[in-house]
C-alpha cells in the first residue's frame, strides 16, 4: 500500500508562497502588456517577499517549530527558520536594488534583450526602444524559494533539488548586465560550468552517502554514521559533498569563480547573491555537517580547518592587490567564507555555540555586503559604474555621507567594535577556540589583520587622497535604494551596539534537529 506523506502546510507555506509568486511572475511576463510589466513584477515580488517574511516570522514565533514534514524532506527548526527569514530580508532589500531605474537614464541595470549579441544592431535596437528584462523578478523568486528550501532540507534529495533551484537562476542573472555585457556573459559561463561540475560532484557524494546509509534522511544518516564511522563509502561521500558545498560558499580552492562573477554580474545581483547565497549555503552546510555527519567530526574538522586557513589567508591576501572595488569585495567575500568556516569548526551547544556564531556572522555580513554593493552601484562615471578604486579617491570630500556609510560597511567587514561585524567575528572565533581549534583561530586573527589593511586603504583613499580629474561621482538613487542603504547601515551599527536581542533569539532558536 502507498500512503501519501503528511505535509505540515502551516509551517512551509512561506516557501510555497514564494515559489507561487515566481510562477505567477512567469504568467505576468507572458500575458501582461510590456508597459505594465515592470510595475506588476516589482509589486508582485515585493508583496510576495513581505508576506513570506511575515509568515516566516509567524512560524518562528509559533509553536510549529521543530517538526519534520514531508517524510523528513523538510525540517522546520529554529536555525533553519532564522536563516529563511534572513534570506527573505536580504532579498527584499535586493528587489529594491533590482528595480533601481534612476541611475542610468531611466533603465534598469539589466540587458534590454539578453538574446541580442553584444555589439550587434539587435542590441542597439533593443536599447533604443528602451526594452528591459522583467523576467529577473520571477527568476529571483525561484532562487529565493530554492534558498529557503536549502535552509530547511532534511534529506539528501531535497538538498540537491534546492541547490539546483537556487543555482540556475543565479547563472542566468549573472549574465544579464546592461553594460560591459561580454564581461558579464563570461562570468555567467564560468559560473555555470564550474557550478555544473560542482553539482555533479555533490551528487556523486550524495549517492555514495546514500549507498552507505541506505537512507536519504540526514537524521538516519547521522545514526548510521554513529554506528559505523569508518566506512570508505561514507568518508568519500562526505568529502565529495563538502566540495559541492564549499564551491557554493566560495572557499579555497573552489573560490576562483567568486571575483569574476562578483565583478561581471550586475551590481544588484552581486549584492543579493553575495549575501543570500552565502546565508543559504552555510545554513545547509551547518545542518549537513552537524546532523548527518556530526559523529564524524574528528574526520571533517581537520579538513575543514585546513580549508578555512587557506581561504582566509588567500582571500585576504588577494584582496590587497585588487584595483577594482567589486573584485576586492569578491576576495573579501572569500575571506569571510574562511571566517565562517572557522565558526563551523566549533560544536553545537545550547548556549552560544557554533550555530549561533555562524548565523550571527551571516546576519552581520549580509547587511554589510548588501549595503556596500548598493553603494558601489551609485558611484558612477560617464560609462556607468566605476569599479576602479583609483577613481574613488577623494569621494569622502565630495560626498561625505556616502563615503562615511561605505566606511561603516567596510569597518563592519573588518570587524571593528561597535559594528555588527565585530560581534560576528568574536562569535566565530569563540566557537572555534571553545572546541580547541586555537591554531585556526591564530591564523584567523592574522588574516583579520591583513583584511583590515585593504578595508582601511579604501577609507584612506576616500578621505585622505585628492580626487583625480576623472574621479567618479555619486548619482542620486531612488528612494528605495537610499532606504536599503540606510537600513543596512543602521542594522550594522545597531547589531554592533545592542546585539543582545538577536543573540538571545539565536540561543532560543536552539540547534539543528534531525
Amino acid at each position, binding site marked *: 500500500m502507498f500512503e501519501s506523506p503528511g505535509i505540515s502546510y502551516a509551517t512551509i507555506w512561506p516557501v510555497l508562497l514564494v515559489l507561487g509568486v515566481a510562477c505567477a511572475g512567469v504568467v505576468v511576463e507572458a500575458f501582461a502588456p510590456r508597459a505594465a510589466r515592470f510595475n506588476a513584477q516589482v509589486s508582485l515580488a515585493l508583496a510576495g517577499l513581505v508576506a513570506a517574511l511575515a509568515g516566516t516570522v509567524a512560524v518562528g514565533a509559533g509553536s510549529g517549530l521543530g517538526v519534520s514534514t514531508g517524510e523528513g524532506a523538510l525540517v522546520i527548526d529554529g536555525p533553519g527558520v532564522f536563516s529563511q527569514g534572513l534570506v527573505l530580508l536580504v532579498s527584499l532589500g535586493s528587489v529594491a536594488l533590482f528595480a533601481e531605474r534612476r541611475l542610468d537614464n531611466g533603465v534598469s541595470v539589466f540587458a534590454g534583450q539578453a538574446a541580442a549579441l553584444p555589439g550587434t544592431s539587435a542590441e542597439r535596437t533593443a536599447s533604443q526602444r528602451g526594452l528591459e528584462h522583467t523576467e529577473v523578478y520571477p527568476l529571483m523568486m525561484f532562487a529565493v524559494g530554492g534558498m529557503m528550501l536549502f535552509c530547511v532540507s532534511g534529506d539528501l534529495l531535497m538538498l540537491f533539488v534546492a541547490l539546483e533551484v537556487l543555482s540556475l537562476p543565479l547563472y542566468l542573472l549573472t549574465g544579464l548586465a546592461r553594460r560591459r555585457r561580454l564581461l558579464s556573459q563570461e562570468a555567467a559561463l564560468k559560473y555555470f560550468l564550474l557550478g555544473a561540475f560542482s553539482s555533479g560532484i555533490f551528487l556523486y557524494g550524495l549517492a555514495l552517502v546514500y549507498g552507505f546509509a541506505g537512507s536519504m534522511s540526514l537524521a538516519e544518516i547521522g545514526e548510521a554514521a554513529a554506528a559505523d564511522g569508518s566506512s570508505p563509502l561514507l568518508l568519500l561521500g562526505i568529502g565529495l559533498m563538502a566540495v559541492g558545498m564549499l564551491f557554493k560558499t566560495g572557499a579555497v580552492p573552489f573560490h576562483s569563480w567568486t571575483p569574476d562573477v562578483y565583478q561581471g554580474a550586475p551590481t544588484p545581483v552581486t549584492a543579493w547573491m553575495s549575501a543570500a547565497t552565502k546565508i543559504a549555503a552555510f545554513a545547509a552546510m551547518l545542518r549537513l555537517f552537524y546532523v548527518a555527519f556530526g559523529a564524524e567530526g574528528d574526520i571533517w574538522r581537520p579538513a575543514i580547518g585546513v580549508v578555512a586557513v587557506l581561504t582566509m589567508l588567500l582571500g585576504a591576501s588577494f584582496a590587497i592587490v585588487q584595483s577594482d572595488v567589486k573584485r576586492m569585495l569578491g576576495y573579501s567575500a572569500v575571506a569571510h567564507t574562511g571566517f565562517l568556516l572557522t565558526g563551523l569548526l566549533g560544536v553545537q551547544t545550547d548556549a*552560544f555555540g557554533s550555530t549561533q556564531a555562524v548565523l550571527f556572522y551571516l546576519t552581520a555580513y549580509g547587511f554589510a555586503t548588501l549595503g556596500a554593493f548598493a553603494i558601489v552601484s551609485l558611484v558612477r562615471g560617464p560609462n556607468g559604474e566605476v569599479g576602479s578604486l583609483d577613481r574613488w579617491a577623494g569621494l569622502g570630500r565630495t560626498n561625505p555621507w556616502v563615503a562615511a556609510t561605505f566606511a561603516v560597511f567596510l569597518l563592519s567587514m573588518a570587524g571593528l567594535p*561597535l559594528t555588527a561585524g565585530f560581534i560576528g567575528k*568574536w562569535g566565530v572565533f569563540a566557537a572555534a*577556540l571553545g572546541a580547541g581549534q586555537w591554531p585556526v583561530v591564530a591564523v584567523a586573527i592574522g588574516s583579520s589583520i591583513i583584511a*583590515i589593511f585593504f578595508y582601511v586603504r579604501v577609507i584612506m583613499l576616500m*578621505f*585622505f587622497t585628492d580626487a583625480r580629474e576623472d574621479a567618479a561621482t555619486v548619482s542620486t538613487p531612488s528612494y528605495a535604494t537610499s532606504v536599503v542603504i540606510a537600513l543596512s547601515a543602521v542594522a550594522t551599527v545597531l547589531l554592533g551596539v545592542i546585539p543582545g536581542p538577536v543573540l538571545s533569539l539565536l540561543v532560543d532558536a536552539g540547534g539543528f534537529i534531525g
Partner: protein
Amino acid sequence: MLTLLVLIPFAGALITAVMPARPKLWAFGFAIATLIAGLVTMFTAPDTDLVWMEPLGVHWALEMDGFGKLMVLLTVVLVPLVMVAAVKDHDKRWYAWALALEAFALLTFLAADLFVFYIAFEATLIPAYFMIGQHGGPNRAKAALKFLMFQLGGGLVLLGALIGFFVVSSEAGAPSYLISDLAQLDIGTTAERWIFVAMFIAFAVKAPLFPVHTWLADTTEQATTPTSVLLVCVLDKIGTFGMIRLCLGLVPEASAWATPVVIVLALISIVYGAVLAIGQDDLLRLIGLTSLSHFGLITLGIFAATREGLVGAILYMVNHGVATAAMFLIAGFLITRKGTASISSMRGLEKATPVLAGTFLIAGLATAGLPGLSQFVSEIMVLISAFDYHWLVGVIAVTAIVLAAIYVLWAYQRIFTGPAQLSRGPVRDLDRREVGVLVPLLVALFFFGFVPAPLISAASPVVEPLVNVIQAGE
C-alpha cells in the same frame, strides 16, 4: 552617573559634527562640561552594572577606583587645553573626533568589564586615525595607516585573549566578562600564559615598547601637536593602564613568569629610545622617542611589581602625561613660528622669545626628572624598584636620567642659544592664549613635584591588593 561622563563627550562629538555655527566653541563647551562631570564623579559616583549582552556575559559595568580617577583627571584636563591650543589650525572635524576620542578613552579607564574595555580600546583608534589623517604633515595619510595597522594588529591579538577568557569563563559556569569575576577564575597555567602574551603584545604596541614602537615617531612627526598630545599622553596610557589592570590584575602568575623578558624589553626601550632621541633633528620625532624611553621606565616599574614600583609607575603615567603634553604643545607653538620642526634650522631664539624658551626648559627638565618637578618623584620610585629587582637592572635604568638630560639640554642649546637669526625676520613670543594653555600644565609640574602625596594616596589602595597577590605567589 559614570555613564554620563562617557556620554557627554560622545554627544558633544555628534553635536559638534553637525553644528553649523561656532562648532569649536560648542566642542570646547562639551570638553569643559566633561571636565566638570569628571571632577564631580570623582567624589560621588556609584558603580554602574547593567546586563548588556546576556549570552556573552557582557555587562555595562563602570567603576572608578584611585587609578581610574588619576587617568580620568589627566584626560578631562588635557582635552580642553589642547582644544585651545588647536584653535587656529584645526577645523571642526578635528574637534568632533577629539571629543569622540575623549569619550572612548574615558570608557577604557572606567570599564569594569573586559568586553567594554576592549570595545573602547579599539574604538579609540577610529577618531585617532582621522585626527592623524586629516591634519598634519605631507605624509600624514601614510602615518595614519601605519598607526592604525599597528594598533589594530595589537587589538586583534587582544581579541584572542578576550575570547580565551570567554572560553575559560563559560567552562567554569555562566560566562561573565566582569573583571572582578575574571579575577576569580582558575585558569590553567598554559592558557594563562597565552592570555598574558596576547594581552601584553596588545599593550606593548599601545604603550609602546621596543620592538613594536616604530609607529610612534612617524606618527608624532606627521600629526599636529594637539593630536600627538592626545595620542601619547592619553591614548598610550591605556597600554600601561591595561598592563596594571589586566596583566597584573587578572593573570598575576603569568605576569611573574614573563617578568624577565618584559624587563629586558623595557630596558631596551629606555636606552634605545633615549639614544634615538638624542640623534633626532626633527623636534616632534625627538619628543615621540623620549616617550618610548619613558614608557620603558613605566613598564619597568609595573613589572618590578614592588609597592614603590607600581605606585611610581602610576604617578609616572600622570606626570609624563603632563610634562610631555607641555613639551608637545610648546614644540607646536615653536613650529608654527618657524614653519619647520627641524632643529638644525633654528638657533638663538632665547633672546627673541624668552617665555617660549623658559617654558621649554621647564617642561624639558621635568621630562628629564629634575628634582622639584613632578616627574622626579615617580622616576625615583621606579628606579628604587628597579634596584630591588636586580642591581644591574637598576644601573641600566639610571642611565635614562643621564641620557634624558642630554637630549633635553642639547635640544635646548641648539634651538635657543647662540646668535639669533636676525635675517629671518622677527619671531613672536608666546601670546596670551598660548601661555594660558601652558600655565596649568606647568603649575601641575611644580605642584606635584613638591606635593606628590595626593597622587600617592590615590594610587596606593589600587596597588596594595596587586602586590599582595604577587608576593603571595612568590
